[in-house]
């Protein structure tokens, strides 16, 4: 599987580089913890739950109403958008976030050449985004990933319609 994950933008920006390196460090932590758990036959569900909790505590926001999709662009700081080379679009009832670079994946690719391992670690790490988009009145979906051959990863959150679930 050939995955292109090189950063193309902000590579001369020392703050963005520092953030990318720091985020990659967290990705390395996750790799070694998952590997140690697997070698001991420990099921990894606790990692999914832990990262979801982290996302809720550190990234999430309390909502006392159903927000409009445009408001959700505020969930992503300018720095985060640069680090991940995010392309954010709001169309109709949904917000789409296309990530063109992933510092976590940079870390995992330096530690293992096993695509199944990358994909598993990604699924764990994305629990943080699932927590971020755990918003009343919204459904969240990871629609495209580089593991499926796409050029970049795409997540989306859609405001539920009245007719949904009918």
């Amino acid at each position: 599987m050939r995955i292109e994950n090189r950063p193309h933008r902000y590579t001369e920006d020392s703050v963005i580089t520092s953030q990318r390196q720091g985020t990659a460090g967290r990705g390395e932590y996750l790799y070694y913890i998952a590997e140690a758990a697997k070698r001991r036959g420990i099921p990894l569900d606790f990692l999914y739950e832990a990262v979801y909790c982290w996302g809720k505590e550190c990234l999430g926001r309390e909502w006392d109403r159903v927000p409009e999709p445009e408001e959700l662009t505020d969930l992503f700081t300018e720095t985060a958008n640069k680090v991940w080379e995010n392309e954010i679009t709001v169309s109709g009832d949904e917000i789409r976030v296309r990530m063109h670079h992933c510092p976590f994946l940079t870390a995992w690719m330096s530690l293992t050449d096993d695509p199944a391992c990358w994909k598993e670690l990604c699924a764990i790490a994305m629990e943080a985004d699932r927590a971020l988009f755990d918003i009343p009145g919204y459904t969240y979906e990871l629609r495209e990933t580089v593991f499926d051959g796409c050029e970049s990863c795409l997540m989306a959150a859609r405001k539920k319609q009245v007719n949904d679930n009918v």
Partner: protein
Amino acid sequence: MEIKNTAKKYLDDPAVVTARNCIIARGEYLYQLVNEAKKKGLSSEFAHCAIYNWGDSIRRRLKDPETTNVKEIIDQLFTEMECKIWEDEVTATEEEARVEFHYCPLLEGWLRNTDDPQMLQELCDIAMECDVALFDKPRFDYSIEESFFSGADHCTMVIRKHKPETEGDTDAH
């Protein structure tokens, strides 16, 4: 237990602040991972092993991973940026080094999630496995002389080149 862990320097340096925030996030990540494991009745032994292995991977990326020259390793690890992030005071010779760090971003991350002294100490023990790996036996003797948990406003790591105790000790060969 009052823990004195406040960043005092480089607060307006964007690169330092960014790096600190990343390490704080890593500390919070570790808290959640260990906390969820505990909830499931798992021992945290796997976390100790994991972070040791992470430290060992850093050691293997050093210029001379097997060197016994303490200053050589210290100079590579405690760069200007690292010393700013952790507010380090470092003294090192070929034989011995003392590293006093006056701020710990990992500890800041943990304190945002818990004030349980036992949990804090456990998380610290896990995180310090990285340093245990970097200054591994039998090359070095590594110890913590003071810590935030003993009421100090800094932690002190001491690393000494391991010296064999007797003439017959196989380390001497």
